[in-house]
């Protein structure tokens, strides 16, 4: 949960950084140490997410900073740059941490300690958390923790974050590390490296915004295109020359400058770890490897992936029914009670019942689907299956100029495009990153889910049953990917012109997910969803209601009543007394019909109707009436707004009665009032799919446009918005025209 914990005064709060390779259980350990109380924000100036929590140590509460997962401090990607800046205390507004907890995969000690050795050069007190200890034991291996602690010179604690094992020991070790200031002895570099570092430091003096640490200078020496170079004013020539001279020295030593650090460090670690990892028992077979033989099979793997995705969307569609009914009943009950209270105030009553409760309620009803979707997403991620999916997709993505690395952000975009776009920061090739950002919003985010469920539930399920409805939901989620791949191909071939880069991926072992983490993820997604219902959805609903309710000319009611009465008298062979008697009873069918006619007349001349009718010709070819047009236009800031907007439109328009208890039924019963289609249903199957295709392809999310603008600039953000909107319009027109021609 995200809380606003009051921080103690800055000078008393110790800052602890948590760092580690990806897939080492860093997030689980962070959750264990902080008790899942987190504050999420951004690092200043960059869009890398900053996660803070409070850990209680012997000295009192301390701030735990969860740094982005990194294999090294090479600082070639945005994530790694932030990690280097935080650790060296060069990030504006952030102090250098008082201690570092380096999370190490116990099954892969040497490679994981490479990062620890790099951090050691900063001289920050460190604790090593040997996580995934259970996986090590499952392999029949053990680590001599005491000996490792002695050789490294810092506390080493064995942990199993998934089971919260070793967490209190880790907390104690952090307290001790801060008190005793125990640091890993940095490795001894060859004289040539030290000389080169000193020369670069001298050359950089006066040309940098802040004095560079030895670690940062070493990064400039070892890394091609290191981000640290950006600290040097206009990449000053003297500094560039000093770096080149330093690299020449390494070449003379017989070392490739780009690989020198790894070669020297691994040699050092090999010596340091001699005899540390022991075979304690019988080595058990590598389960993960045998599962992967099937999961990563060219045909079998893709089939399993397809089946899994189908099962997920089928479950999302069919499991939520009872809970949705429950929310709907609750909504109706609240409407009844509140409507009764506000009866003496008709305008306020309409705002609260037809506007707020109807609009927000129509949106909140989809909470169960969101929870089920996130249950599966976190289950697939925590088991380690997502990495396999990225591997499977590498071939497909290679065809369109990207690689499997782009699949991870795209898969994240199925939850929400914003974290998906932020996840592209791990892609080193800036052009591939740009293309991934531009196609990520095409993935069907969870905000599209309510739109699909509403329309599929109203028009596909009644005709073809639950199974086909689930399949339709799956197909709508595939549509974005099916468009994204050729779009990426066009972009990489003709616009940004890049070639696929080699894809290196670490496949984490399969693990049983921790139910606590899965539930936590669901809770966060649910809270976010409800939060939106109470903020942006509520605000837009109120505005939509006002535009639909006003103007309210008094004479309109009299006109409609007069016209309606005259029609009824004519239909009853001139028996005015009979008609008047029936109209005098407010519960009679005739009175209800008149009430609906008055509501409909008011809605039809409202400001919103005028706007909708003006824009409607643009969407006529896609089969939209003015009400759908209003829903679509109102959804440009956030696409899920269409649900609440349609809820308010149909509630105020007098279309909701006892035969249409929910929005689904109301939409299914809606008919064209006049024009060439008068009396025919507005929502046919072709219209329903036309709307869904529009929502699948359109860039209706103000927050996503803003994030793209932050990442790539406003020019690209606008290009993305215009092209996606155009694509959505063309797609929906095609679907409607073809669908109608085929008789749907």
């Amino acid at each position, binding site marked *: 949960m995200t809380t606003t914990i009051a921080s103690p005064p800055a000078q008393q709060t110790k800052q602890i950084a948590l760092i580690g390779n990806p897939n080492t259980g860093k997030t689980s350990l962070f959750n264990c140490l902080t008790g899942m109380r987190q504050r999420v924000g951004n690092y200043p100036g960059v869009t890398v997410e900053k996660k803070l929590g409070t850990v209680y140590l012997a000295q009192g509460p301390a701030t735990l900073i969860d740094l982005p997962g990194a294999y090294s401090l090479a600082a070639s990607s945005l994530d790694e740059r932030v990690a280097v800046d935080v650790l060296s205390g060069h990030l504006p507004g952030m102090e250098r941490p008082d201690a570092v907890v380096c999370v190490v995969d116990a099954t892969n000690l040497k490679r994981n300690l490479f990062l620890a050795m790099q951090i050691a050069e900063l001289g920050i007190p460190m604790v090593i958390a040997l996580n995934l200890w259970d996986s090590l034991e499952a392999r029949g291996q053990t680590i001599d923790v005491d000996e490792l602690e002695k050789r490294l010179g810092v506390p080493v604690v064995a942990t199993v974050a998934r089971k919260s094992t070793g967490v209190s020991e880790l907390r104690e070790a952090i307290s001790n590390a801060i008190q005793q200031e125990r640091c890993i002895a940095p490795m001894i570099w060859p004289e040539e490296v030290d000389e080169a570092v000193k020369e670069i430091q001298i050359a950089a003096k006066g040309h940098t915004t802040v004095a560079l640490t030895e670690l940062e200078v070493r990064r400039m020496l070892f890394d091609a295109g290191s981000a640290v170079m950006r600290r040097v004013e206009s990449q000053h020539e003297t500094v560039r020359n000093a770096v080149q001279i330093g690299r020449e020295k390494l070449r003379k030593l017989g070392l490739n400058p780009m690989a020198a650090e790894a070669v020297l460090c691994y040699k050092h670690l090999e010596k340091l770890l001699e005899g540390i990892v022991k075979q304690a028992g019988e080595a058990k077979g590598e389960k993960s490897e045998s599962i992967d033989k099937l999961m990563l099979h060219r045909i079998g793997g893709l089939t399993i992936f397809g089946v899994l995705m189908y099962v997920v969307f089928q479950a999302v569609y069919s499991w939520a029914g009872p809970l949705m009914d429950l929310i709907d009943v609750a909504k109706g009950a609240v409407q009844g009670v509140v409507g009764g209270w506000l009866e003496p105030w008709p305008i*306020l009553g309409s705002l609260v019942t037809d506007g707020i409760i109807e609009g927000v309620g129509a949106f909140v009803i989809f909470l169960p689907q969101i929870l089920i979707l996130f249950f599966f997403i976190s289950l697939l991620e925590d088991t380690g299956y997502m990495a396999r999916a990225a591997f499977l997709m590498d071939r497909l993505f290679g065809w369109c100029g990207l690689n499997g690395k782009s699949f991870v952000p795209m898969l994240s975009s199925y939850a*929400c495009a*914003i974290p998906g776009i932020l996840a592209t920061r791990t892609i080193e090739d800036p052009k591939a990153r740009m293309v991934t950002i531009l196609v990520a919003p095409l993935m069907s985010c969870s905000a599209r889910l309510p739109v699909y469920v509403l329309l599929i539930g109203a028009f596909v399920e009644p005709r073809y049953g639950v199974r086909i409805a689930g399949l339709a939901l799956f197909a709508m989620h595939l549509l974005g990917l099916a468009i994204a791949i050729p779009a990426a191909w066009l972009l990489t071939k003709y616009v940004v012109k890049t070639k696929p880069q080699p894809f290196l991926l670490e496949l984490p072992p399969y693990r049983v997910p921790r139910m606590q983490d899965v539930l936590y993820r669901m809770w966060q997604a649910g809270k976010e969803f409800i939060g939106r219902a109470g*903020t942006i959805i509520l*605000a837009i609903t109120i505005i939509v209601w*006002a535009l639909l309710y006003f103007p309210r000319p008094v004479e309109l009611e009299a006109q409609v009543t007069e016209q309606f009465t005259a029609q009824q008298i004519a239909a009853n062979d001139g028996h005015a007394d009979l008609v008047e008697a029936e109209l005098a009873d407010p519960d009679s069918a005739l009175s209800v019909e008149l009430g609906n006619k008055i509501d409909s007349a008011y809605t039809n001349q409202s400001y919103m109707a005028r706007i909708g009718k003006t824009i409607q010709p643009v969407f006529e070819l896609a089969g939209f009436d003015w009400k759908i047009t209003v829903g679509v236009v109102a959804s440009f800031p956030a696409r899920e707004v269409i649900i609440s907007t349609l809820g308010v439109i149909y509630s105020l328009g007098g279309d909701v009665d006892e035969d249409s208890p929910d929005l689904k039924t109301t939409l299914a019963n809606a008919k064209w009032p006049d024009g060439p289609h008068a009396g025919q249903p507005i929502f046919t199957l072709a219209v329903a799919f036309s709307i869904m295709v529009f929502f699948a392809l359109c860039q209706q999310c*103000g*927050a996503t446009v803003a994030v793209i603008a932050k990442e790539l600039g406003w020019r690209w953000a606008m290009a993305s918005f215009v092209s996606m909107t155009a694509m959505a319009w063309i797609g929906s027109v095609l679907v409607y025209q073809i669908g109608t021609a085929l008789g749907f």
Partner: protein
Amino acid sequence: MTEVTIVAAIVLAAGYYLFRCWRKSSKPQGCGDNKSCGCRRKR
């Protein structure tokens, strides 16, 4: 009159909220750390 005033105040507050939200999201830093406007969705 009181009823109309209350409704007008609610509608104006909603409009102001959306305007503030738009202003925040169009700034270079976007919503940044301040998510109170609900613009910024996180995973």
